[in-house]
């Protein structure tokens, strides 16, 4: 074959043959033995599989993926030992939120949610829209699943904000921290959402709620971190200088100047975080997250067009509710900052 001569010329023949080819038959071997030619003609690309054929000492590509898997599985007990207790509260929170949203009677829960929309947005239009949406979902028997989705979003968004804002503050304080965290955020934003799920499934059991909770938080926490960092960095330098000139401590500066002035940006981040957790909660139904996503999945799996579409429209409604409400709150904060 093509590369055998190379190993001979390098004087590595003896080393190569010392291994002896006792690996099981690979797909490439199978194809070769059936006489299939894998294109290109002449010299094939020196991939691991091709080189392995010339010299059995060289690993095959499947050994690489296998090694990765083995390594991960070897680390798993230790990782679980640390991650399990740390993330356990997340399971409890998700489960109790789900229990709360599904067991409180609708005639208590719905008015409470509509009042919450009013309290946050102070806008009649938005509140009316929220009320009508819930009514619509209720009429077509989708209220309970929609509330399940909503409960997951509430929990995951709250945790994202609680973790994300301090991380954003830390980034705004130090260039080094920012340089360290930015690539992680880029990674979280560019990784296809399904890829998050793969290591998580290995780490946790699919029956645990924290599995999808972690996936959603990892995906949704990015905007609130970024916009907190940006918001604090954008605070007028003159105002910061004045705060220093009047002898404010770091803490006073943070609470009295930086956070209030960064609030519009932070709120914009929270809005984005809510929308991204809604996007992820649908995908997370692949790993047993309850809610509207399950129905969408059923629509795809069983080719039940109607079920999938209705659930999809339900998700759009939820998205619009959450977006309008949080945008109205943002606008209110903005107005307060500019004082009319």
């Amino acid at each position, binding site marked *: 074959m093509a590369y055998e001569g190379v190993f001979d010329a390098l004087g590595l023949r003896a080393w190569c043959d010392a291994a002896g080819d006792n690996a099981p038959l690979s797909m490439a071997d199978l194809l070769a033995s059936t006489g299939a030619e894998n294109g290109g003609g002449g010299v094939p690309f020196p991939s691991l599989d091709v080189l392995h054929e010339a010299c059995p000492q060289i690993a095959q590509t499947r050994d690489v993926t296998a090694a990765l898997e083995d390594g991960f599985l070897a680390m798993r007990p230790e990782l679980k030992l640390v991650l399990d207790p740390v993330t356990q509260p997340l399971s409890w929170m998700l489960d109790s939120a789900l229990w709360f949203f599904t067991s409180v009677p609708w005639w208590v829960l719905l008015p409470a949610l509509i009042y919450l929309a009013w309290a946050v947005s102070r806008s009649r239009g938005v509140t009316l829209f929220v009320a009508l949406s819930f009514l619509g979902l209720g009429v077509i028997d989708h209220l309970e699943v929609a509330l399940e989705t909503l409960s997951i979003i509430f929990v995951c968004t709250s945790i994202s904000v609680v973790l994300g804002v301090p991380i954003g503050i830390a980034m705004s304080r130090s260039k080094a921290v920012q340089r360290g965290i930015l690539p992680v955020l880029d990674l979280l934003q560019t990784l296809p959402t399904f890829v998050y799920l793969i290591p998580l499934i290995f780490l946790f059991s699919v029956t645990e709620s924290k599995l999808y909770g972690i996936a959603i938080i990892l995906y949704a926490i990015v905007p609130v971190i970024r916009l907190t960092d940006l918001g604090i960095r954008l605070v007028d330098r003159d105002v910061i200088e004045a705060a220093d000139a009047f*002898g404010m401590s770091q803490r006073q500066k943070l609470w009295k100047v930086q956070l209030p002035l960064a609030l519009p940006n932070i709120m914009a981040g929270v809005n984005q975080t809510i929308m991204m957790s809604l996007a992820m909660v649908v995908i997370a139904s692949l790993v047993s997250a309850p809610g509207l996503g399950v129905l969408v999945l059923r629509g795809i799996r069983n080719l039940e067009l109607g079920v999938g579409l209705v659930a999809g429209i339900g998700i759009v409604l939820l998205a619009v509710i959450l977006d309008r409400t949080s945008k109205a709150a943002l606008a209110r904060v903005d107005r307060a900052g500019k004082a009319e």
Partner: protein
Amino acid sequence: MSMPKIALRGLYKIFGPDDAAMMAHIRAGMGKTELLEQHKHVLGLQDISVDMQPGEITVVMGLSGSGKSTLIRHLNRLIEPTAGEILLDGEDVTALGPDALRQLRQKRMSMVFQKFALLPHRTVLQNAATALEVQGVDRPTREAEAQKWLKRVGLDGYEGRYPAQLSGGMQQRVGIARALTSNADIMLMDEAFSALDPLIRTDMQNLLLELQVELQKTIVFITHDLDEALKLADHLVILKDGAVVQQGEPQGILLAPADPYIEDFVRDINRARVLRVRSVMEPVQDRSCAGDVDPDDTLEALIARSGGETSLCYRVVKNGEILGQIDMRDLVRALVPRGVTGTH
């Protein structure tokens, strides 16, 4: 002479990553341009020594880039000096630790900014009370104090407004009230009136002088406007390229500019309005005069009084004591800046 409130001794500031090492080059006589070319460091201030007397307005004047804003930020160490001493009542500010420094900024020095730098999310009253809030004074006390000073600067009735609802002049009044509320006896004013319209600026200058008669604060005032500097200054410091070119009483600088740079500067000034009788008067001679004048009258006032007649002379009298006399011809001669020749 009494002890200066603030004394700067051989103050240097070099901007760049390795400023301390650059001091050796500067001490060896390297200039600003060579330092920038050979070592990529910027010489911000060089060998500044200024005494600022208690109860006086010290005006630091210079064009943009002369280092005046850098200089004022050294007084409360918003910028750290590279070398030199900053003595406040004889105590070296550069030696203070972080806590002592914050104490100093809270209690002993307040600051007024060119762009006002008010907190946009707080009302005028809350803004004015900032300094006391930082010190941990309880709310009723600090708001009463802020209220008092807002009233004093003419903002009675605006307590509940937000800064964005006020005009520039009013915002700067809030800035001044905020500085006064801290009860610090030193007030740093960084181009405090430069962003205001000319008429409002004159108003604010008058307000400051009026407050100063009453409060006797030690004020350090930065400006690029010579008219403003001459109007406010008890002691005038002129900066150029980070170095003091001349300092002293404004009248003295006007009559005897130390170098061509300052001569250029003072050429366009309305000298009749700035110069005072005491700066031009001469010892009493045996001559009968047309009347008595006060040493602090401006020459402009005296010209108006004489009706333009140049043959007269006036006795300069203060508290019944004859200090000297002023000949109208000397007066007219003093109006011509040095370096202007008679022929065209």
